[in-house]
Protein backbone atom coordinates (compact mmCIF):
# COMPACT_ATOMS: atom_id res chain seq x y z
CA UNK A 1 0.00 0.00 0.00
CA UNK A 2 2.80 2.39 0.88
CA UNK A 3 4.51 1.65 -2.40
CA UNK A 4 1.40 2.44 -4.36
CA UNK A 5 0.90 5.66 -2.48
CA UNK A 6 4.48 6.70 -3.17
CA UNK A 7 4.14 5.85 -6.85
CA UNK A 8 0.90 7.74 -7.04
CA UNK A 9 2.51 10.75 -5.40
CA UNK A 10 5.34 10.54 -7.91
CA UNK A 11 2.77 10.71 -10.69
CA UNK A 12 0.34 13.15 -9.10
CA UNK A 13 1.95 16.34 -10.48
CA UNK A 14 1.49 15.00 -13.99
CA UNK A 15 -2.08 13.87 -13.35
CA UNK A 16 -2.92 17.15 -11.66
CA UNK A 17 -1.37 19.13 -14.49
CA UNK A 18 -3.28 17.23 -17.15
CA UNK A 19 -6.63 17.46 -15.38
CA UNK A 20 -6.01 21.10 -14.57
CA UNK A 21 -5.08 22.03 -18.13
CA UNK A 22 -8.02 20.15 -19.59
CA UNK A 23 -10.58 21.82 -17.39
CA UNK A 24 -8.87 25.21 -17.64
CA UNK A 25 -9.09 25.04 -21.43
CA UNK A 26 -12.81 24.27 -21.32
CA UNK A 27 -13.41 26.99 -18.77
CA UNK A 28 -11.36 29.61 -20.64
CA UNK A 29 -13.22 29.07 -23.87
CA UNK A 30 -16.54 29.60 -22.13
CA UNK A 31 -15.31 32.58 -20.16
CA UNK A 32 -13.74 34.27 -23.18
CA UNK A 33 -16.80 33.63 -25.28
CA UNK A 34 -19.05 35.15 -22.65
CA UNK A 35 -16.80 38.20 -22.35
CA UNK A 36 -16.75 38.78 -26.09
CA UNK A 37 -20.48 38.44 -26.19
CA UNK A 38 -20.97 40.98 -23.44
CA UNK A 39 -18.70 43.47 -25.22
CA UNK A 40 -20.65 43.03 -28.41
CA UNK A 41 -23.98 43.37 -26.65
CA UNK A 42 -22.79 46.59 -25.01
CA UNK A 43 -21.59 48.07 -28.28
CA UNK A 44 -24.69 46.97 -30.17
CA UNK A 45 -27.09 48.28 -27.56
CA UNK A 46 -30.19 46.15 -27.11
CA UNK A 47 -29.79 44.29 -30.39
CA UNK A 48 -28.70 41.09 -28.70
CA UNK A 49 -30.81 39.07 -31.14
CA UNK A 50 -28.27 39.66 -33.90
CA UNK A 51 -25.70 37.95 -31.74
CA UNK A 52 -27.46 34.63 -32.18
CA UNK A 53 -25.34 32.19 -34.18
CA UNK A 54 -26.18 31.69 -37.81
CA UNK A 55 -26.17 28.35 -39.65
CA UNK A 56 -22.91 29.51 -41.26
CA UNK A 57 -21.26 29.80 -37.86
CA UNK A 58 -22.56 26.35 -36.91
CA UNK A 59 -21.05 24.89 -40.06
CA UNK A 60 -17.73 26.64 -39.41
CA UNK A 61 -17.65 25.16 -35.92
CA UNK A 62 -18.33 21.71 -37.38
CA UNK A 63 -15.31 22.32 -39.63
CA UNK A 64 -13.15 23.20 -36.63
CA UNK A 65 -14.35 20.09 -34.76
CA UNK A 66 -13.50 17.96 -37.78
CA UNK A 67 -10.01 19.46 -38.09
CA UNK A 68 -9.31 18.92 -34.38
CA UNK A 69 -10.44 15.29 -34.67
CA UNK A 70 -8.10 14.77 -37.62
CA UNK A 71 -5.20 16.31 -35.68
CA UNK A 72 -5.95 13.98 -32.75
CA UNK A 73 -5.87 10.90 -34.93
CA UNK A 74 -2.70 12.06 -36.69
CA UNK A 75 -0.77 12.68 -33.45
CA UNK A 76 -1.75 9.22 -32.24
CA UNK A 77 -0.67 7.55 -35.48
CA UNK A 78 2.68 9.36 -35.78
CA UNK A 79 3.21 8.59 -32.06
CA UNK A 80 4.72 11.70 -30.49
CA UNK A 81 5.49 10.00 -27.19
CA UNK A 82 3.11 9.24 -24.34
CA UNK A 83 4.18 12.08 -22.05
CA UNK A 84 3.35 14.74 -24.68
CA UNK A 85 0.55 12.79 -26.32
CA UNK A 86 -1.75 12.57 -23.28
CA UNK A 87 -1.81 16.33 -22.46
CA UNK A 88 -2.16 17.20 -26.16
CA UNK A 89 -5.11 14.82 -26.59
CA UNK A 90 -6.82 16.00 -23.42
CA UNK A 91 -6.47 19.66 -24.39
CA UNK A 92 -7.72 19.04 -27.93
CA UNK A 93 -10.76 17.13 -26.71
CA UNK A 94 -11.41 19.83 -24.08
CA UNK A 95 -11.47 22.39 -26.90
CA UNK A 96 -14.00 20.30 -28.83
CA UNK A 97 -16.00 19.90 -25.64
CA UNK A 98 -15.94 23.67 -25.12
CA UNK A 99 -17.12 24.43 -28.65
CA UNK A 100 -20.05 22.04 -28.43
CA UNK A 101 -21.31 23.19 -25.05
CA UNK A 102 -20.60 26.85 -25.80
CA UNK A 103 -22.16 27.10 -29.25
CA UNK A 104 -24.23 24.03 -30.07
CA UNK A 105 -25.66 23.85 -26.56
CA UNK A 106 -25.92 27.65 -26.37
CA UNK A 107 -24.23 27.99 -23.00
CA UNK A 108 -22.40 31.00 -24.40
CA UNK A 109 -25.67 32.77 -25.11
CA UNK A 110 -27.80 31.47 -22.28
CA UNK A 111 -28.22 32.54 -18.69
CA UNK A 112 -25.12 32.00 -16.58
CA UNK A 113 -27.03 29.82 -14.13
CA UNK A 114 -27.22 27.02 -16.73
CA UNK A 115 -23.44 27.14 -17.11
CA UNK A 116 -22.99 27.10 -13.35
CA UNK A 117 -25.27 24.09 -12.98
CA UNK A 118 -23.58 22.10 -15.69
CA UNK A 119 -19.97 23.06 -14.98
CA UNK A 120 -20.63 22.37 -11.29
CA UNK A 121 -21.60 18.80 -12.14
CA UNK A 122 -18.75 18.51 -14.61
CA UNK A 123 -16.08 19.60 -12.12
CA UNK A 124 -17.62 17.33 -9.48
CA UNK A 125 -17.31 14.48 -11.97
CA UNK A 126 -13.68 15.40 -12.70
CA UNK A 127 -13.02 15.36 -8.96
CA UNK A 128 -14.68 11.94 -8.60
CA UNK A 129 -12.56 10.66 -11.48
CA UNK A 130 -9.36 12.00 -9.95
CA UNK A 131 -10.25 10.39 -6.61
CA UNK A 132 -11.14 7.02 -8.15
CA UNK A 133 -8.02 6.92 -10.26
CA UNK A 134 -5.88 8.06 -7.34
CA UNK A 135 -7.36 5.44 -5.02
CA UNK A 136 -7.50 2.43 -7.31
CA UNK A 137 -5.09 3.26 -10.11
CA UNK A 138 -2.04 1.08 -10.35
CA UNK A 139 0.74 3.21 -11.70
CA UNK A 140 3.86 1.71 -13.13
CA UNK A 141 6.63 4.15 -13.87
CA UNK A 142 7.80 3.86 -17.48
CA UNK A 143 11.38 2.87 -16.71
CA UNK A 144 12.32 0.49 -13.92
CA UNK A 145 12.06 2.11 -10.53
CA UNK A 146 13.66 2.23 -7.16
CA UNK A 147 10.22 1.99 -5.59
CA UNK A 148 9.33 -1.35 -7.16
CA UNK A 149 12.72 -2.82 -6.36
CA UNK A 150 12.71 -1.84 -2.72
CA UNK A 151 9.24 -3.33 -2.30
CA UNK A 152 10.23 -6.69 -3.72
CA UNK A 153 13.24 -6.76 -1.37
CA UNK A 154 10.92 -6.16 1.55
CA UNK A 155 8.82 -9.10 0.43
CA UNK A 156 11.92 -11.29 0.42
CA UNK A 157 12.50 -10.61 4.06
CA UNK A 158 8.85 -10.89 4.97
CA UNK A 159 8.24 -14.30 3.51
CA UNK A 160 11.76 -15.76 3.75
CA UNK A 161 11.37 -17.42 0.40
CA UNK A 162 14.73 -17.05 -1.27
CA UNK A 163 13.91 -19.28 -4.18
CA UNK A 164 14.81 -18.61 -7.81
CA UNK A 165 11.11 -17.97 -8.25
CA UNK A 166 11.24 -14.69 -6.35
CA UNK A 167 14.25 -13.58 -8.32
CA UNK A 168 12.44 -14.27 -11.57
CA UNK A 169 9.41 -12.34 -10.37
CA UNK A 170 11.47 -9.44 -9.12
CA UNK A 171 13.27 -9.09 -12.41
CA UNK A 172 10.31 -9.57 -14.74
CA UNK A 173 9.71 -6.61 -17.04
CA UNK A 174 7.25 -3.90 -16.08
CA UNK A 175 4.85 -4.66 -18.92
CA UNK A 176 5.08 -8.41 -18.90
CA UNK A 177 2.69 -9.65 -16.27
CA UNK A 178 1.53 -12.70 -18.17
CA UNK A 179 4.45 -14.98 -17.51
CA UNK A 180 3.84 -18.61 -18.32
CA UNK A 181 6.74 -20.13 -16.44
CA UNK A 182 5.93 -22.76 -13.88
CA UNK A 183 7.48 -23.39 -10.54
CA UNK A 184 7.98 -26.58 -8.63
CA UNK A 185 8.12 -27.14 -4.91
CA UNK A 186 11.59 -28.02 -3.83
CA UNK A 187 11.76 -26.76 -0.27
CA UNK A 188 8.20 -27.65 0.74
CA UNK A 189 7.09 -24.04 0.47
CA UNK A 190 5.82 -22.13 -2.51
CA UNK A 191 4.75 -18.54 -3.13
CA UNK A 192 2.07 -17.49 -5.56
CA UNK A 193 1.44 -13.79 -6.08
CA UNK A 194 -1.35 -11.71 -7.50
CA UNK A 195 -1.11 -8.12 -8.71
CA UNK A 196 2.36 -8.76 -10.11
CA UNK A 197 3.65 -6.00 -12.46
CA UNK A 198 0.44 -4.01 -12.08
CA UNK A 199 -1.81 -6.77 -13.41
CA UNK A 200 -4.52 -7.04 -10.80
CA UNK A 201 -6.45 -10.11 -11.94
CA UNK A 202 -3.82 -12.75 -12.54
CA UNK A 203 -1.71 -15.22 -10.58
CA UNK A 204 2.02 -15.46 -11.04
CA UNK A 205 3.12 -18.12 -11.73
CA UNK A 206 0.02 -19.39 -13.49
CA UNK A 207 1.17 -23.01 -13.29
CA UNK A 208 2.76 -24.72 -10.31
CA UNK A 209 4.00 -28.26 -9.93
CA UNK A 210 3.98 -30.27 -6.71
CA UNK A 211 5.00 -33.78 -5.88
CA UNK A 212 2.23 -36.29 -5.13
CA UNK A 213 1.75 -37.24 -1.51
CA UNK A 214 3.85 -34.41 -0.08
CA UNK A 215 2.82 -31.65 2.24
CA UNK A 216 3.42 -28.18 0.77
CA UNK A 217 3.16 -24.82 2.45
CA UNK A 218 1.50 -22.43 0.00
CA UNK A 219 2.06 -18.71 0.51
CA UNK A 220 -0.29 -16.33 -1.27
CA UNK A 221 1.24 -12.88 -1.64
CA UNK A 222 -1.25 -10.20 -2.75
CA UNK A 223 0.67 -7.35 -4.41
CA UNK A 224 -2.48 -5.91 -5.98
CA UNK A 225 -4.71 -3.03 -4.97
CA UNK A 226 -7.77 -4.95 -3.72
CA UNK A 227 -8.46 -8.06 -1.63
CA UNK A 228 -8.07 -11.51 -3.21
CA UNK A 229 -7.98 -15.08 -2.02
CA UNK A 230 -6.51 -18.36 -3.15
CA UNK A 231 -8.49 -21.57 -3.45
CA UNK A 232 -8.22 -25.03 -5.00
CA UNK A 233 -11.94 -25.95 -4.91
CA UNK A 234 -11.48 -29.57 -6.01
CA UNK A 235 -9.05 -30.22 -3.18
CA UNK A 236 -11.05 -28.27 -0.63
CA UNK A 237 -8.07 -25.99 -0.02
CA UNK A 238 -8.34 -22.27 0.62
CA UNK A 239 -6.30 -19.33 1.87
CA UNK A 240 -8.94 -16.88 2.90
CA UNK A 241 -9.37 -13.32 1.69
CA UNK A 242 -6.09 -11.44 1.81
CA UNK A 243 -6.06 -7.65 1.75
CA UNK A 244 -3.96 -5.68 -0.72
CA UNK A 245 -0.29 -5.81 0.25
CA UNK A 246 -0.80 -8.72 2.67
CA UNK A 247 0.09 -12.36 2.38
CA UNK A 248 -1.53 -15.48 3.75
CA UNK A 249 -0.54 -19.13 3.87
CA UNK A 250 -1.84 -22.63 4.33
CA UNK A 251 -0.56 -26.19 4.22
CA UNK A 252 -1.75 -28.29 1.33
CA UNK A 253 -1.78 -32.06 1.72
CA UNK A 254 -1.10 -33.06 -1.89
CA UNK A 255 -3.11 -36.15 -2.97
CA UNK A 256 -1.13 -39.28 -3.79
CA UNK A 257 -2.47 -39.52 -7.33
CA UNK A 258 -1.11 -37.32 -10.12
CA UNK A 259 -3.53 -34.85 -11.70
CA UNK A 260 -4.19 -31.25 -12.66
CA UNK A 261 -6.43 -28.92 -10.71
CA UNK A 262 -7.46 -25.28 -11.13
CA UNK A 263 -6.57 -22.77 -8.48
CA UNK A 264 -8.66 -19.60 -8.45
CA UNK A 265 -9.56 -16.46 -6.59
CA UNK A 266 -13.05 -17.25 -5.30
CA UNK A 267 -14.18 -13.63 -5.00
CA UNK A 268 -17.11 -13.32 -7.46
CA UNK A 269 -15.97 -12.23 -10.91
CA UNK A 270 -12.24 -12.54 -10.23
CA UNK A 271 -11.83 -15.99 -11.74
CA UNK A 272 -13.60 -14.78 -14.87
CA UNK A 273 -11.34 -11.71 -14.95
CA UNK A 274 -8.29 -13.94 -15.18
CA UNK A 275 -7.52 -15.13 -11.65
CA UNK A 276 -7.17 -18.78 -12.49
CA UNK A 277 -4.12 -21.04 -12.68
CA UNK A 278 -3.23 -24.70 -12.60
CA UNK A 279 -1.61 -26.89 -10.02
CA UNK A 280 0.00 -29.98 -11.50
CA UNK A 281 0.57 -32.99 -9.26
CA UNK A 282 3.36 -35.27 -10.43
Amino acid at each position, binding site marked *: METQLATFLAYSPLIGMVIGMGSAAAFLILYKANQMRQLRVESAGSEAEDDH*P*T*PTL*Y*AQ*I*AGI*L*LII*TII*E*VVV*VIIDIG*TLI*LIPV*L*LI*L*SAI*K*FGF*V*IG*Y*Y*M*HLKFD*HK*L*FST*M*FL*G*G*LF*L*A*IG*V*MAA*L*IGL*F*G*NFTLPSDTVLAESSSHEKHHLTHVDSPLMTVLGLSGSDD*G*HSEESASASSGSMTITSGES*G*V*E*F*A*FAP*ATVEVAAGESVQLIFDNKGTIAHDFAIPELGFAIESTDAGQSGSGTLAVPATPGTYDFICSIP*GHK*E*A*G*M*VGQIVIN
Partner: protein
Amino acid sequence: MHDENVGHATTTGLDNRKMLMWVFLASDCLFFGSLISTYMVMRSQSGVGPFPGDIFDILYTSVSAFVLLMSSLTMVLSLSALQRGDHKNTRIWLLATAFLGAIFLGGQYYEFTVFVAEGLTLSTNIFGTTFFVLTGFHGTHVAIGVMMLLSMYGASVLGKLPQSSSINLELVGLYWHFVDIVWIVIFTIVYLIPS
Protein backbone atom coordinates in the same frame (compact mmCIF):
# COMPACT_ATOMS: atom_id res chain seq x y z
CA MET B 1 -51.93 21.73 -23.69
CA HIS B 2 -51.01 25.21 -22.62
CA ASP B 3 -49.01 27.61 -24.74
CA GLU B 4 -45.44 26.45 -24.31
CA ASN B 5 -44.02 29.82 -25.14
CA VAL B 6 -45.42 31.47 -22.03
CA GLY B 7 -44.07 29.05 -19.48
CA HIS B 8 -44.51 29.47 -15.75
CA ALA B 9 -43.21 32.30 -13.67
CA THR B 10 -40.19 30.94 -11.82
CA THR B 11 -38.00 32.34 -9.08
CA THR B 12 -35.02 32.30 -11.44
CA GLY B 13 -36.96 33.70 -14.38
CA LEU B 14 -35.64 30.73 -16.35
CA ASP B 15 -37.53 27.87 -17.88
CA ASN B 16 -37.77 25.06 -15.34
CA ARG B 17 -37.67 22.35 -17.97
CA LYS B 18 -34.43 23.66 -19.37
CA MET B 19 -32.97 23.92 -15.89
CA LEU B 20 -34.06 20.33 -15.26
CA MET B 21 -32.32 19.18 -18.41
CA TRP B 22 -29.07 20.91 -17.45
CA VAL B 23 -29.15 19.47 -13.94
CA PHE B 24 -29.87 16.03 -15.40
CA LEU B 25 -26.92 16.38 -17.78
CA ALA B 26 -24.69 17.49 -14.90
CA SER B 27 -25.69 14.36 -12.96
CA ASP B 28 -25.06 12.22 -16.03
CA CYS B 29 -21.51 13.63 -16.06
CA LEU B 30 -20.97 11.85 -12.74
CA PHE B 31 -22.36 8.61 -14.14
CA PHE B 32 -20.06 8.66 -17.14
CA GLY B 33 -17.17 9.99 -15.05
CA SER B 34 -17.36 6.93 -12.79
CA LEU B 35 -17.58 4.49 -15.70
CA ILE B 36 -14.71 6.18 -17.53
CA SER B 37 -12.43 6.13 -14.47
CA THR B 38 -13.31 2.49 -13.78
CA TYR B 39 -12.30 1.70 -17.34
CA MET B 40 -9.05 3.66 -17.00
CA VAL B 41 -8.14 1.90 -13.77
CA MET B 42 -9.05 -1.60 -14.96
CA ARG B 43 -8.21 -1.76 -18.64
CA SER B 44 -4.60 -2.84 -18.21
CA GLN B 45 -5.36 -5.20 -15.31
CA SER B 46 -6.50 -8.20 -17.31
CA GLY B 47 -4.70 -11.47 -16.81
CA VAL B 48 -5.82 -12.81 -20.18
CA GLY B 49 -6.21 -11.17 -23.59
CA PRO B 50 -7.36 -9.67 -25.84
CA PHE B 51 -5.82 -6.43 -24.59
CA PRO B 52 -6.82 -2.92 -25.75
CA GLY B 53 -3.92 -2.63 -28.19
CA ASP B 54 -4.89 -5.90 -29.88
CA ILE B 55 -8.34 -4.98 -31.04
CA PHE B 56 -8.86 -1.22 -31.37
CA ASP B 57 -9.12 0.13 -34.87
CA ILE B 58 -8.57 3.87 -34.48
CA LEU B 59 -9.43 4.88 -38.04
CA TYR B 60 -12.74 3.02 -37.93
CA THR B 61 -13.69 4.65 -34.63
CA SER B 62 -12.61 8.09 -35.90
CA VAL B 63 -15.22 7.78 -38.61
CA SER B 64 -17.96 7.03 -36.04
CA ALA B 65 -16.75 9.92 -33.90
CA PHE B 66 -16.98 12.13 -36.98
CA VAL B 67 -20.51 10.91 -37.77
CA LEU B 68 -21.64 11.79 -34.25
CA LEU B 69 -19.98 15.24 -34.44
CA MET B 70 -21.80 15.94 -37.70
CA SER B 71 -25.11 14.88 -36.14
CA SER B 72 -24.59 17.70 -33.66
CA LEU B 73 -24.36 20.10 -36.57
CA THR B 74 -27.57 18.82 -38.17
CA MET B 75 -29.24 19.03 -34.75
CA VAL B 76 -28.51 22.76 -34.32
CA LEU B 77 -29.51 23.39 -37.90
CA SER B 78 -32.86 21.74 -37.21
CA LEU B 79 -33.45 23.84 -34.09
CA SER B 80 -32.33 26.97 -35.89
CA ALA B 81 -34.81 26.24 -38.71
CA LEU B 82 -37.66 25.73 -36.25
CA GLN B 83 -36.85 28.98 -34.48
CA ARG B 84 -37.17 30.73 -37.83
CA GLY B 85 -40.49 28.94 -38.48
CA ASP B 86 -39.04 26.90 -41.32
CA HIS B 87 -40.78 23.57 -40.74
CA LYS B 88 -39.58 21.86 -43.90
CA ASN B 89 -35.93 22.26 -42.99
CA THR B 90 -36.63 21.42 -39.36
CA ARG B 91 -37.85 18.00 -40.49
CA ILE B 92 -35.06 17.45 -43.00
CA TRP B 93 -32.35 18.15 -40.43
CA LEU B 94 -34.19 16.16 -37.75
CA LEU B 95 -34.26 13.13 -40.01
CA ALA B 96 -30.61 13.67 -40.91
CA THR B 97 -29.70 13.78 -37.20
CA ALA B 98 -31.64 10.59 -36.45
CA PHE B 99 -30.06 8.96 -39.49
CA LEU B 100 -26.52 9.87 -38.41
CA GLY B 101 -27.31 8.63 -34.90
CA ALA B 102 -28.53 5.35 -36.39
CA ILE B 103 -25.33 5.07 -38.46
CA PHE B 104 -23.30 5.55 -35.28
CA LEU B 105 -25.30 2.80 -33.54
CA GLY B 106 -24.88 0.49 -36.50
CA GLY B 107 -21.14 1.19 -36.44
CA GLN B 108 -21.00 0.40 -32.75
CA TYR B 109 -22.95 -2.81 -33.27
CA TYR B 110 -20.51 -3.83 -36.00
CA GLU B 111 -17.53 -2.95 -33.79
CA PHE B 112 -18.92 -5.05 -30.93
CA THR B 113 -19.45 -7.98 -33.33
CA VAL B 114 -15.84 -7.75 -34.50
CA PHE B 115 -14.58 -7.62 -30.90
CA VAL B 116 -16.67 -10.64 -29.91
CA ALA B 117 -15.35 -12.50 -32.95
CA GLU B 118 -11.82 -11.70 -31.79
CA GLY B 119 -12.63 -13.18 -28.40
CA LEU B 120 -13.48 -10.13 -26.30
CA THR B 121 -16.81 -10.38 -24.52
CA LEU B 122 -18.33 -8.80 -21.44
CA SER B 123 -16.91 -11.65 -19.35
CA THR B 124 -13.59 -12.44 -21.06
CA ASN B 125 -11.54 -10.16 -18.85
CA ILE B 126 -11.77 -6.97 -16.84
CA PHE B 127 -10.93 -4.87 -19.90
CA GLY B 128 -13.89 -6.37 -21.77
CA THR B 129 -16.21 -5.81 -18.82
CA THR B 130 -15.35 -2.15 -18.32
CA PHE B 131 -15.15 -1.44 -22.06
CA PHE B 132 -18.54 -2.90 -22.95
CA VAL B 133 -20.27 -1.41 -19.91
CA LEU B 134 -18.95 2.08 -20.72
CA THR B 135 -19.52 2.08 -24.48
CA GLY B 136 -22.78 0.13 -24.14
CA PHE B 137 -24.08 2.67 -21.65
CA HIS B 138 -23.20 5.44 -24.09
CA GLY B 139 -24.80 3.50 -26.96
CA THR B 140 -27.99 3.23 -24.91
CA HIS B 141 -27.97 7.01 -24.54
CA VAL B 142 -27.63 7.35 -28.32
CA ALA B 143 -30.48 4.89 -28.91
CA ILE B 144 -32.77 6.83 -26.55
CA GLY B 145 -31.72 10.02 -28.35
CA VAL B 146 -32.63 8.56 -31.74
CA MET B 147 -36.08 7.66 -30.40
CA MET B 148 -36.53 11.19 -29.08
CA LEU B 149 -35.50 12.63 -32.45
CA LEU B 150 -37.92 10.40 -34.32
CA SER B 151 -40.76 11.33 -31.99
CA MET B 152 -39.92 15.00 -32.58
CA TYR B 153 -40.07 14.29 -36.30
CA GLY B 154 -43.46 12.64 -35.83
CA ALA B 155 -44.72 15.56 -33.80
CA SER B 156 -43.56 17.97 -36.48
CA VAL B 157 -45.30 16.01 -39.25
CA LEU B 158 -48.53 15.96 -37.22
CA GLY B 159 -48.24 19.71 -36.73
CA LYS B 160 -47.62 19.42 -33.01
CA LEU B 161 -44.24 21.10 -33.07
CA PRO B 162 -45.08 24.77 -33.75
CA GLN B 163 -42.46 27.49 -33.78
CA SER B 164 -43.76 28.64 -30.38
CA SER B 165 -42.79 25.34 -28.72
CA SER B 166 -39.25 25.19 -30.04
CA ILE B 167 -38.19 24.67 -26.40
CA ASN B 168 -39.15 20.97 -26.81
CA LEU B 169 -36.75 20.53 -29.67
CA GLU B 170 -34.13 22.55 -27.81
CA LEU B 171 -34.29 20.12 -24.86
CA VAL B 172 -33.88 17.11 -27.15
CA GLY B 173 -30.99 18.99 -28.75
CA LEU B 174 -29.27 19.54 -25.40
CA TYR B 175 -29.52 15.83 -24.65
CA TRP B 176 -28.22 14.96 -28.11
CA HIS B 177 -25.21 17.30 -27.89
CA PHE B 178 -24.41 15.90 -24.46
CA VAL B 179 -24.27 12.39 -25.91
CA ASP B 180 -21.89 13.82 -28.50
CA ILE B 181 -19.54 15.45 -25.97
CA VAL B 182 -19.47 12.26 -23.91
CA TRP B 183 -18.30 10.47 -27.04
CA ILE B 184 -15.63 13.16 -27.56
CA VAL B 185 -14.27 12.22 -24.13
CA ILE B 186 -14.67 8.45 -24.59
CA PHE B 187 -13.05 8.59 -28.02
CA THR B 188 -10.02 10.37 -26.57
CA ILE B 189 -9.67 8.42 -23.34
CA VAL B 190 -10.71 4.94 -24.46
CA TYR B 191 -9.43 4.77 -28.01
CA LEU B 192 -6.71 7.36 -28.51
CA ILE B 193 -4.78 7.39 -25.23
CA PRO B 194 -2.61 4.27 -25.15
CA SER B 195 -2.98 2.08 -22.07
